[in-house]
């Protein structure tokens, strides 16, 4: 069994940052950065220690706790370093720990999985603790507190019942050709609404998953468009260094904010501009990487942006939210759209083969970005030191998440209280007569309210929001894929192929509903057909 290590606290700067190690090498690896720990530390005792870099230079002071196997959260030897919550410091400590032979970075949820597999926590508790900790924001707390919502049950059933009926008709026609003759005749037509239904459900579930894990919003665009000013205005602090000189922001910066109850990680990227060279190319890659992980990309354009620039930037990602920065400088950017074309609502920006934007920004991704997997909250399990920090399946599909299929216990809720739908960019239109466009100024605060509303509207989307785990989103995706293939097969393949895809869809759906797919099918067949000789 390898030793794993990870940040146990969230990625944003907080009071305390915890690095946790679990496995046989936990103590040895910790000693690479810990000074002042006895040779044989007393388990469950908090030692006041110094944290150093590889050369021995003291970086910080804090507590080190050691838990001997099997009396620890994971059942293995566990060491926790409680340092100050400075991201740079924590990333240096973690990097050094990971240099130790046999130590690797934990995958998301891996601590909980080890705890679960060693019998240290039961599944329900693993889930409950994980959910509670994941509930970083108001909306999450509401979602986690509620039990299976009537609305979601109804929507699943509205999909499940006609899907099962169709499967029964198709399978009936295959297994009982004489008794169920013709039952499959309109299979293709019956598949259409099912595909539409699951796509709508999937959309809502994906937005629900955003609420659960928080959304990543990435600001990008040409150099000196006012991204950093906007970033600072949105987080309400002077985090990004702002200067009138182009290319001031060299690193990507992150901050957690809460928008209408939604936990949002705001990412500011280096501005990019035309100009060849390897370093510029590197900068483009950094920004592209940030964009790939974004739930929503915000393209910030300077007032003087041309139609070509706008098209080029817009083509970088799918459907970015487009805003015009520095509204203070140019109260009516691009009058009547002659400099930049009028945006369609679906977010198509013209030809894909556009010149790559480039610039002098050469940001480095800040070190903690990839290690957001494990977070902790001491509120979760009071009075039990060894359980203080429990990892969370916060953002990604994890193996533990896969094991969490507790049918009927999916805590899903239709989240109310999200921002009301509003006409997109209405105030911009009123003020500047430029339809469908947001003009903002981080400096004066103009357009910020509208931008926040727009962000929330985009992230929450239209229709209901259902809060589900990533695992359930995955299951719904499988349902959607199988039904789409079934629809295609109904046109080009045989009935048995359609039946096979329907079966895959039903089984994926049963992971959500907890139904016994094969028993359901037999019941449905025998209810619908008079079979027998």
């Amino acid at each position, binding site marked *: 069994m390898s030793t794993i290590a990870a940040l146990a606290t969230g990625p944003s700067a907080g009071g305390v940052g915890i690095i946790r190690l679990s496995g046989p090498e936990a103590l040895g690896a910790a000693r690479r950065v810990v000074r002042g720990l006895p040779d044989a530390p007393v388990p469950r005792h908090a030692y006041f220690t110094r944290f150093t870099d590889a050369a021995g230079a003291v970086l910080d002071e804090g507590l080190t706790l050691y838990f001997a196997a099997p009396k620890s959260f994971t059942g293995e030897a566990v060491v926790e370093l409680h340092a100050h919550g400075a991201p740079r410091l924590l990333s240096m400590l973690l990097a050094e720990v990971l240099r130790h032979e046999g130590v690797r970075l934990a995958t998301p949820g891996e601590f909980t999985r080890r705890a679960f597999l060693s019998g240290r926590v*039961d599944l329900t508790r693993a889930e409950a603790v994980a959910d509670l900790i994941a509930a970083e924001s108001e909306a999450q707390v509401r979602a986690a507190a509620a039990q299976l919502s009537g609305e979601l049950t109804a929507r699943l059933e509205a999909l499940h019942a006609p899907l099962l009926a169709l499967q029964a008709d198709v399978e009936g026609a*295959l*297994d009982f050709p004489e008794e169920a003759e013709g039952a499959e005749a309109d299979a293709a037509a019956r598949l259409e609404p099912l595909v539409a239904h699951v796509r709508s459900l999937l959309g809502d579930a994906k937005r629900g998953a955003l609420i659960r894990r928080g959304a990543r919003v990435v600001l990008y665009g040409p150099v000196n468009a006012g991204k950093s000013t906007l970033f600072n205005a949105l987080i309400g602090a002077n985090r990004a260094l702002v200067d009138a000189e182009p290319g001031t922001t060299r690193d990507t910066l992150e901050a957690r904010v809460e928008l209408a109850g939604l936990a949002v990680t705001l990412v500011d990227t280096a501005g990019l501009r035309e100009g060849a060279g390897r370093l510029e190319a590197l900068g483009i890659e950094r920004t592209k990487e940030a964009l790939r992980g974004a739930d929503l990309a915000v393209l910030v354009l300077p007032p003087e942006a041309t139609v070509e620039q706008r098209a080029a930037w817009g083509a970088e990602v799918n459907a970015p939210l487009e805003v015009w920065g520095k509204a203070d400088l140019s109260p009516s950017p691009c009058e009547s759209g002659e400099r930049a074309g009028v945006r369609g609502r679906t977010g198509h920006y013209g030809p894909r083969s556009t010149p790559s934007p480039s610039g002098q920004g050469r940001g480095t991704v800040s070190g903690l970005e990839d290690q957001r997997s494990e977070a902790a909250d001491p509120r979760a399990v009071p009075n039990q030191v060894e359980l203080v920090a429990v990892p969370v399946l916060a953002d990604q599909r994890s193996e533990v998440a896969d*094991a*969490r299929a507790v049918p009927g216990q999916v805590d899903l809720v239709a989240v109310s209280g999200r921002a009301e739908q509003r006409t997109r960019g209405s105030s911009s239109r009123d003020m500047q007569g430029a339809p469908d466009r947001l003009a903002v100024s981080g400096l004066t605060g103009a357009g910020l309210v509208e931008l926040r509303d727009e962000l929330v509207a985009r992230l929450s989307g239209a229709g209901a929001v259902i809060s589900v785990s990533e695992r359930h989103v995955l299951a719904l995706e499988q349902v959607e894929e199988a039904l789409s293939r079934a629809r295609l097969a109904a046109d080009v393949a045989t009935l*048995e192929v359609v039946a096979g*895809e329907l079966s895959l869809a039903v*089984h994926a759906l049963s992971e959500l509903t907890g139904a016994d797919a094969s*028993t359901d099918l037999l019941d449905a067949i025998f209810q619908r057909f*008079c079979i027998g000789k």
Partner: protein
Amino acid sequence: MESYDVIVVGLGHAGCEAALACARMGLSTLGLTMRADRIALMSCNPAIGGTAKGHLVRELDALGGEMARAADQAGTHFVTLNGSKGPAVRATRVLCERDVYAEVMQATVRAQARLTVVEGEASVLEVEGARVVGVTLQDGRRFAARAVVVTTGTFLQALMHLGDEKSVGGRLGDAAATGLSVSLRALGFSLGRFKTGTPARLLKDSIDWARCERQPGEVSPRPFSLRTPRAPFPLRAPLDCFVTHTNAQTHGILRDNLHASPLFQGEIVGRGPRYCPSVEDKVVRFAHRARHTVFLEPEGHQSPLVYPAGLSTSMPAEVQLRFLRSIVGLEEVQVARYGYAVEYDYAPPTQLHATLETKRVAGLFFAGQLNGTSGYEEAAFQGLLAGINAGLQVQGAPALVLGRDEAHGAVLLDELVTRGVDEPFRMMTSRSEHRLTLREGNAEFRLRAHGARVGLVSAVEAASSAQRADQVRGELARLEGARLLAKLRRPEVTYASLAAEDVHRPALPEDLCAEVEVEAKYAGYVKQAQTTWTRKVESHDAWRIPEGFRYAEVRGLSREAVEKLELVRPDTVGHARRVQGLTPAAMSLLLVALRAAKA
């Protein structure tokens, strides 16, 4: 005391396969039957095959079983079902001459070396130290054996119902077996109660055939068995089937007489199969249907009887005659034997290992209707596998347990021992997640090597199938090399239509051309299904669960889950995962506990 390697109790469709398999594997075998003249009797409809059942017969044949060959000898009406719905669900059904089928199988049994047939009723299973050692008959005769296969069909504690008349017996004209039920219970087996039924038998000459719709069989069918020569075939002159329908008057007569039906009076307690309801059941449950189809199946060239499929009933004789005569074509029908229902003991199959050996008594195997199944084909496949595994155990060789991706028959066995039955179990292709690859057409490629391994298929036969499989693979590779494979995958292109532009094509037999086409066209779908289903197969599935594992001590496991697992007592984690109603969460807890037990 006479001693044998294997004793097979009962020589119906399961028993014949078991006994023949053991004898052919070189073991001295005793077949016990209550009446030697009724060996391999088709007690209900005179047909072999159908959807999923045809698949089972082809699989049994590829493993070295006998049913397909007997059906070829006795067949008078061959049809292929689902011709247009896809090659995997395409299925063969053969209407047989009832008497001929039994005669053919009886002759095979009599001619089989090392197989002795004795008439008598097995009454007590002799067990020493949780291992079966022999059988004692009702009359006191005793036989010793190293393994015993029980295939008693519907005969355990059998009770027949015809209206309010009850009579003891497993089939009209036959007795019931009572002693064996007592013996099984004494050994600790639990037994349940099922019901099945059969329609009246009609006299051929009393039917007005001109008023019924003719349904001829195929002119040049493919034999069921790989061992039956392709020509001349069919071996017997064809017989046509006919179709007629019930009507409002029929339904009225049935509804007016429900009070006389033992089924609706609560006289019958055993649960009957939903896919084979009695006609009175159909009229009640599907009240909106204006008519139900009746298939009139002649029982043979020499037989005066016709089997009216779809009219199973246990109504009193007088009601049966009246509702029959309300049907078009049957206005003046004469009845040779009235329909009846039979209730019988079955042994819930969750008491079995995947080999069909009982968990309670080593060397004791159960197969066929005793396990709660229905249908000749389901019985025969179980009989073959139980016989093979009894034989392998006596030989000290490893057991034969097929994977769900290898055969519909494996799915049948897995569902039985894993999920159990709550009604008589009929095989359906929809139970198999690997249906697209489990075709009648490739049964020999899937299973003949297994048949050869256990000694039921000759080396020559196995080599022939292997060579044919190579031909298919070779042709697919050639098509790919010639850049024609992608074209063949298009919906509108067939292997035949491609011939014009494919000048180097080798001459392949017709059935192999069909295989090439299916393999090419289905490759994408099969891969998709395999990816999905194998993703569901966990890496822990092979973990063995120790015998006597205490589920009640698994931390966090619900009482419901404990009860289910205690009942089934799965052999492996994969087996446990398929237990009905077990949640993934319960599986995780079980994994955790097993890991802990290992450490």
